[in-house]
């Protein structure tokens, strides 16, 4: 559990981060979202003391970050940034091994960990281990960057716009990878982005920052249905709201028994996908399948009911 208490950062007379208090539960993905200059990156960088707070403190599992030397603290926290920040003169393997090397892991343990991580990110160790970052595509570089941040099995991982430099298709894949890996490893992730779509897609909880202040902290559904300020409403977008809400709900949640006509969709797809299938093919219901076999269907009426504003 990460407790942020009254955290403030002043640059001269400007409050970059203004008295932020929030608690991040262990094993969740928390996305900090805001416009540029909202203080979201400064907030993240105060967690591993890349920025020192002017006042307030951060406690990780009850221990204040101020009680540890900064470089020791940082070795225990994964850190991934926009543009990957890989060392151009080191191979993929040596890049991933950077933190384990700082922690003086034995050589064979490091080698095994590197291979394990490359496989986790669907990169063949034999093929990629000895390449240099410049030989990789943008998506591969980004995956190695995240693998490096995960190398020492940190309990907490900080990600500063990790997918910002990727094109939309590769970004969507990287986001899926992150969710998959998070489900598998269960570490706590704090991620900064300016992209509300990314926040809704990844987050267990979203923290919205505006002018240094934390204006709302809640689940994606809460943020969409009950925006605390006009700024949050703007970030979510009036037109997009019902569709964003549907994207949060899996088909299985409102599925009913019985068959339906036409092509089926997967049980873990979102209602947004189901709505799209209905509209495109002019159907009022679509069948749902799991593992290749039909298990029920969802109706357009039920989807519509979910998208409706419920005060």
């Amino acid at each position: 559990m990460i407790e942020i208490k009254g955290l403030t950062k002043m640059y001269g007379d400007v409050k970059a981060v203004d008295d932020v208090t929030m608690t991040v539960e262990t094993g969740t993905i928390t996305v900090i979202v805001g416009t540029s200059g909202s203080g979201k990156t400064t907030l993240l960088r105060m967690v591993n003391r890349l920025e020192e707070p002017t006042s307030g403190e951060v406690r990780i599992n009850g221990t204040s970050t101020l009680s540890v030397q900064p470089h020791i603290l940082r070795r225990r926290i994964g850190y991934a940034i926009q543009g990957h920040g890989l060392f151009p003169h080191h191979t993929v393997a040596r890049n991933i091994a950077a933190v384990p090397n700082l922690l003086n892991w034995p050589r064979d343990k490091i080698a095994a960990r590197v291979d394990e991580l490359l496989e986790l990110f669907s990169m063949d160790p034999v093929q990629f281990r000895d390449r240099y970052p410049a030989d990789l595509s943008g998506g591969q570089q980004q995956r190695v960057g995240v693998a490096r941040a995960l190398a020492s099995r940190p309990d907490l991982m900080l990600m500063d716009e990790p997918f910002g430099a990727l094109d939309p298709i590769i970004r969507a894949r990287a986001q899926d990878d992150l969710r998959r890996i998070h489900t598998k490893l269960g570490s706590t992730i704090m991620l900064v982005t300016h992209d509300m779509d990314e926040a809704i897609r990844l987050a267990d909880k979203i923290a919205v920052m505006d002018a240094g202040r934390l204006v709302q902290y809640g689940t994606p559904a809460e943020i969409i249905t009950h925006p605390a300020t006009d700024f949050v409403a703007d970030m979510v977008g009036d037109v997009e709201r019902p569709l964003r809400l549907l994207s949060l709900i899996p088909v299985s949640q409102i599925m009913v028994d019985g068959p339906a006509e036409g092509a089926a969709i997967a049980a873990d797809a979102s209602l947004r996908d189901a709505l799209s299938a209905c509209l495109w093919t002019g159907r009022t219901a679509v069948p749902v399948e799991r593992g290749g076999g039909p298990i029920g269907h969802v109706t357009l009426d039920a989807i519509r009911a979910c998208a409706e504003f419920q005060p």
Partner: protein
Amino acid sequence: MTQAHRRLAFSATGVLFAILGLGALLVPFMTIAANRIVEGDGMRIWNIATPSATLPGLAAVVAGLLLGLPDNMTRARLAGAVMGLAGLVWLLVQGAPALLEGAGAYARVSPATGFWCLLGVFLLLAADALAGMAPGPVMRAELLATAVGVLAAVLWSGALSDLSIMQEYASRRDAFLAATWQHLGLAFGSLAAAAALGFPLGILCHHQIKLRSMTMPVLSFLQTIPSLAMFGLMIPVLAWVGATFPGAQALGIAGIGFAPAFLALVLYALLPVVGNTVAGLAAAPQAARDAALGMGMTPRQRLWRVELPLGLPIILTGLRIVLVQNIGLAVIAGLIGGGGYGTFVFQGLNQTATDLILLGTLPTVALALTAAIFMNIFVDLTRTSTDARND
């Protein structure tokens, strides 16, 4: 038509070299003088020896110029340059004894304008052809070793010993050897001292902006002091040090001699060393530096593991600048008794003996060229081991 045209395409530089080279054939190739001080009479290439002796050399020179013409045939152009250079040496070897014959005991023969122009043309042709071949670091090292080896063999063989400059050398063999060591000591010693001072200073400046903003203007100012004035300024300063501190004179510190020259060279060398160290350390990509900090590297680990390896090519480029600059500047040390090749240059100036000046100048130029090429190869080697490797 286009194919034939392409086959006959001329290199623009090759045409220029051919025109310059053929023009140089018309000006005096060697001079013969009654003694080492008076001005000599210019002799054109066909007058320096019997036709049967000069013809092979002349043919090689013309053939070399013609081989330099075609475009896209870099090997042929390089062969032309080598053939031309061989022709020039042949002409000197044939011409010197022929001209000296019956000219008197004190007569001197020297290469003249025509020779130097042709030498320049063929060296440029060789450089142009090599640039077209884009040789890798290893091949360049081999070429450099070959060139140095051939030059040493030609000089060692005594084939050129009739030339005036070689006679100046023959009468100063020991002094030349001593000057060589002094010159190398001044150039490389000051480089080592500047590196020993400049690297730590550069690393400090990299971390402390305040120190950098104070240091760099001072070093830039030092660089603007004219070299003669700098060497002159060292005289009173070190004379005072030698006279004031007991034991300083025993270490050889005095107003004139090696010490003030050495100090002046170190001061000149500091700006490139410190400047390139600062620039090199700042050359690592911002994201890589941020990642290094964020993953928990200490400042020392960031320096050794990220900033230094990535900045090494730029830092070594600074050392190359210093080495070439100091080999040249060390000539001025001769003026304040610091030794080195400058001794011959200033003796020659006093005696108006051109060939004695050349005895100081030519080895300096050769040394600077060799050092520059060697350092370039070294920088490229570090670059290929740190840079993005796409091929």
